[in-house]
């Protein structure tokens, strides 16, 4: 059962991500990315990370991808007629790395022991959301604050970049 779900999610994720890259119309690309995000969320649920699954859908699908679609429609993009001329290079690089990755995981991956003993913080027991919150606000408090700073900087940067006349008349 578990394997069935994994292979379903994995197959859809792989196909959808290839479609994101291969499709010519940006809207279709964005939609296949949407499908991929949903299946990644499903994968998270099967990995018992349901909070992350919800956040994945809310942030990626609900906010980030909507912004992409917004910009695609705002700019009224034409279809991408052909791929970049460096695609042979990309193919070589991608294929080499893919072979390498699969070989490494197949050679070394089987040697990974089944499941090590529980370390200090357990995912089980305490609910997933509580465990995550606990770690986030104790061990990772400083990175958390830095992340909020990054968001603030990104927000200001985005406004400055996208606004037409900064410092002109009353903005």
């Amino acid at each position, binding site marked *: 059962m578990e394997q069935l779900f994994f292979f379903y999610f994995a197959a859809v994720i792989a196909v959808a991500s290839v479609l*994101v890259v291969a499709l010519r119309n940006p809207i279709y690309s964005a939609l296949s990315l949407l499908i991929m995000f949903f299946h990644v969320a499903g994968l998270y649920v099967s990995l018992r990370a349901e909070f992350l699954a919800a956040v994945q859908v809310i942030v990626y699908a609900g906010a980030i991808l909507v912004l992409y679609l917004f910009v695609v429609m705002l700019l009224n*993009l034409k279809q*991408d007629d052909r791929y970049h001329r460096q695609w042979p290079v*990309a193919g070589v690089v991608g294929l080499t790395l893919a072979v390498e990755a*699969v070989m490494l995981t197949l050679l070394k991956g089987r040697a990974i022991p089944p499941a090590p003993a529980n370390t200090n913080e357990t995912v089980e027991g305490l609910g997933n959301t509580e465990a995550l919150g606990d770690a986030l606000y104790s061990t990772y408090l400083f990175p958390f604050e830095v992340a909020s700073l990054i968001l603030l900087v990104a927000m200001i940067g985005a406004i400055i970049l996208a606004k037409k006349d900064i410092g002109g008349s009353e903005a």
Partner: protein
Amino acid sequence: MTIPVFYYLILSAVVFLTGLVGVLIRRNIIIILLSVELMLNATNINFVAFSQYFHNVAGQVFVFFALTIAAAEVAVGLAIIIALHRAKSSINVDEFQLLKW
């Protein structure tokens, strides 16, 4: 019946490489940014898989931070795209080559 962790590694590698190839072969900046999202998601899958594997919640915390970075990236990236489109009314990467020699 649990899934061996290297299945997740292979899946994540495939998705990451798809994103990488996407960045290299597409000329539309928006698709390039979408490919970057693919790569971020590939790493997230890895983080969550290992979080489950080691029974340690730290991996999921990192996914949380990756999400934050992705949100910041998309805000700035799309703002840059809008600025570029305003300057050249095109978002084809080949047209932006002032810094190229």
